[in-house]
């Protein structure tokens, strides 16, 4: 079971969180024209990376905040966690 540092609550076990997918995906702005391809990329197309990547988790059984977690998908090592409003520096 992963041990995730919630930026608000501190170290907590994985079973307090729910997974939220790729954290680098940006929702297209409302009301803006967007091509089918770009929309598909936003809604469906995800890379299944091996290695370091940023993902979203929600601390549902804690502070209910969405957080950003940098994790290695192969080793489960967690390098960094950020609050929802903090920018990822890639």
């Amino acid at each position, binding site marked *: *079971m992963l041990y995730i540092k919630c930026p608000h609550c501190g170290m907590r076990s994985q079973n307090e969180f729910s997974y939220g997918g790729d954290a680098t995906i940006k929702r297209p702005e409302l*009301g803006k024209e*967007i091509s089918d391809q770009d929309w598909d990329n936003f809604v469906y197309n995800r890379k299944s990376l091996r290695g370091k990547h940023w993902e979203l988790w929600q601390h549902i059984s804690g502070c*209910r905040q969405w957080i950003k977690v940098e994790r290695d998908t192969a080793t489960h090592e967690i390098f960094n966690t950020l609050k929802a409003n903090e920018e990822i520096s890639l």
Partner: protein
Amino acid sequence: MTQNFRLESGGLINRGKKISFKFNGKNYFGYEGDTLASALIANGVHLIGRSFKYHRPRGFFGAGVDEPYAIVQLYRNGETEPNIKATEQELFEGLEAKSVNCWPSVNFDVGAINNFLKIFLPAGFYYKTFMWPKSFWYKIYEPFIRKAAGLGTASIKHDKERYEHKYEYCDLLITGSGPSGLASAYAAAKNGAKVILAEDKSRFGGTLLTSDVNIGNQSGKEWADSIVSELKEMSNVTIKNRSQVFGYYDHNMLVMSERISDHLPKTKKYHPKQKLWYIRAKEVLISSGSIERPIVFGNNDTPGVMLSSAAKEYMKVYGVLVGKKPLIFTNNDSGYETAIEFKKNGINPIILDTRKEPQSEIIDEAKNMNINIKNSYVVVAAQGYKKVKSADIAKISDDKEKLGSIENIDCDCICVSGFWTPTIHLASQSGNKTKFKEEIDAFVPGTSKQNEKTLGAANGIFTLEETLKDSFEQGNRLSKKITNNDNKVSFPNVVEKKSAVHDKFWCVPLPKGKNYKRFLDFQNDVAVSDIEIALKEGYRSIEHVKRYTTLGMATDQGKTSNLNGLQLVSKIENKVVPAVGHTTFRPPYTPVSIGAIVGREVGKHSKPTRKSPMHSWHEKNNAVFVDAGVWLRPRYYKRGDENLFEASKREAKNVRTNVGVCDVTTLGKIDIKGPDAAELLNRVYTNAWLKLPIGKARYGVMLREDGIVMDDGTTTRISENHYHMTTTTAQAANVLSHLEYYLQLVWPELNVNVVSTTEQWAGAAIAGPKSRDLLKKLFPKSDVTNEGLPFMGYIEGDLFGVKAKIFRISFSGELAYEVNVESDYGYFMWEKIIEIGEEFGIQPYGTEALSTLRIEMGHVAGSELDGRTIPYDNSLEGLLSKKKDFIGKRSLTRKAFAAEDRQKIVGVVPLDKKTSIPEGSHLVKDSNAPLPNPKLGYISASCWSVEHDNPFSLAILKDGKNMIGKKLFVMSPLKNKVIPVEIVSSHYVDPKGERVRS
């Protein structure tokens, strides 16, 4: 029965307390502190089971967790448990055990014929034999194999025992209480670190209980006892026996099973049987010791052949002799320690040492005691069927290839020592890259991936002095890192006998003309010849060899067999052992009961049960409940002999004619506050929200980004910046997360807060033509006329002193209201509604009537909003705003979603107006068409229309828009039904929606 093999004195058992037990129906006695194994051996019982494949007789091989043979079916307090190791099971009064894997009995076993058919059961026999004729497999081969093979029998009864889970955090977790575990725990505890020390056995001390050493001025055991009692006094130390750390998982989380009651005749009241500990440790010290390796020789599976360390443990801990004419077969000094112990107890052992001229203090001691030692000697084969009777022994050449002439000597047990294998399982599970250590012919932990460190014998260190030194140091160093204390413990003086180097000899060659089975894996009957066949057939990877031959795959997971298997593969392949590599170690280290893994999440406790504040009223009024997600809701209120169908029809009819009340507390409720609340609603719902007046409710539909309907519900504007959202019962949690996602990540600029208030409000839906009359009496001070409280209106009212929220919304399609009060007043509200509603003929209605009412009205619910439908499919396209963007809007332009013949909701009525339509049935054009019959749609919900008094269903139908009036067939292959039907509008009752506005 007399305990013929019990020593006059000695051991750590309590001779003052006799314990009676039963094995295979016979009564025996042992003492408190015995294991089932030691008690049976004390009684001279060595035949305990049959082997997995050949059904050869099986005795005892070890004295603990490594035991491959002695697996029994245990009976305790009216329950039975399979595959218990007799070497681990502590004796208790009234214990009953039986052999497994033998039929009809352990002494006469029909399956033993496999032993003579073994030529037909070679490696991979599962894959080769029983292949034809094909039809024989299910009827003959498989049932026979299942009866002949297989281990114990699981109970099919409900397990009445309780199992608990516990989460724990510590600075240091130390796994094993031998010398390294005790020393490191002591050093760490002195530094004030929070320490958990786990010991698998009932007694602390590990090898200190059996080895002849001195620490300071105490014996090893005395030293262990004093350290343990000191640790027990320290508030920062948790010290647990009967506790096996069996798994090492991510981020330094380990799992330990504590056997709290397994050693007792009966679990004490309020106690669990076992407890599973999830331990998050800052640092882990693995002090799991080592397991003695066997040497491979002919018939080495005969009962009476066992590990020399086990023989010593039976003497020193249990005061039991495993035999009275012991033969010790060793390639190192450990065998001598066992021989010396025999001699001290008045037994004359013979030592066969594969080494030519070994010299050490221990060997000198054995010589001084006049023990018969034969150097360069090996056991070629054990003789005897159900117990060792003699041994064929021979001199072996210096190159270990040639055997001298064979002699037969009498013996009743053969104690084998092929040196020691470090127990690296936990380290390996943690991701540690293990390395091969030449000097000890075994793998040891290498580079750590997590915060773990391995100590003592588990790390390939076999001298006590070095072990203690390293363990004190590591315990001090790691705890200092955490607590910043540095309380040095003075290092005691250690007296131990020096050993000579071991002989890297592990397998006795076959004598000419003999074809003895030489076993590697004792539980799965994998012999040297099986590995040879597998390699001959082209299997190379050790992982493949393992699976093909089943080497190391039994319940002991090859604790005694893995390394010898590797030696063999490396020899045949002419590779060094590290090049062959070992198979992956996976948790659990040793079997864990399913009960412990499941814990208390059994039956009703497998999920929480949520009840509304009115639950006890429903119970008192004959409600029959149904699970709605985690909620319990009344399905119907039974009157007299009514069944579900009759009751729900009565309740629904009463709503259409008088007035009904339904508990709607379970609906999700979200409180939304902030100046941008309307903007948030406008973005998450498909329709327009910016101009909703205060005191008005609106129905809204939410989509996912992919255009699929996520949820629907009404949201009411309570005041300027305050909204009250309702969701479906099932989606309440998801909708909250959905809103939080957009507010926190996508539109953080919106000034809005959301919070769940589901449990803060109790809700009652009051529906029916007489509902306004009732409301007038409930809220005499409020204006609830059609003008004062119009459809989709909202007011606050005073319910006999209780503040209430009154919404004029309707799911039933009738004139209806939903009244909310704070949860604590829910019961009061409900009683008042029932009491005052009596004169209007009020009846409570359950979810079944609720469904009937919404289905015949064509209102969609979970069965239509099933994660596969878009707004159009549910005839909700009128709610899609053209003027604004919203979540999921862009997806609705996808080709399939915009197709002309897109599926759409319709009503379905059977032509005979009698036959009920099963939910989930398919709609087809021609019921006689050849299979696969093209499916046009499916029945999503069915009811008996109380308005029309005939069956009515909703369906999602391809090109539904143009199908109204068409005749189709409903087919339900499951119920074997074909029903001719007519497609009608989904709004079967009051299509213009006049009632809700009346």
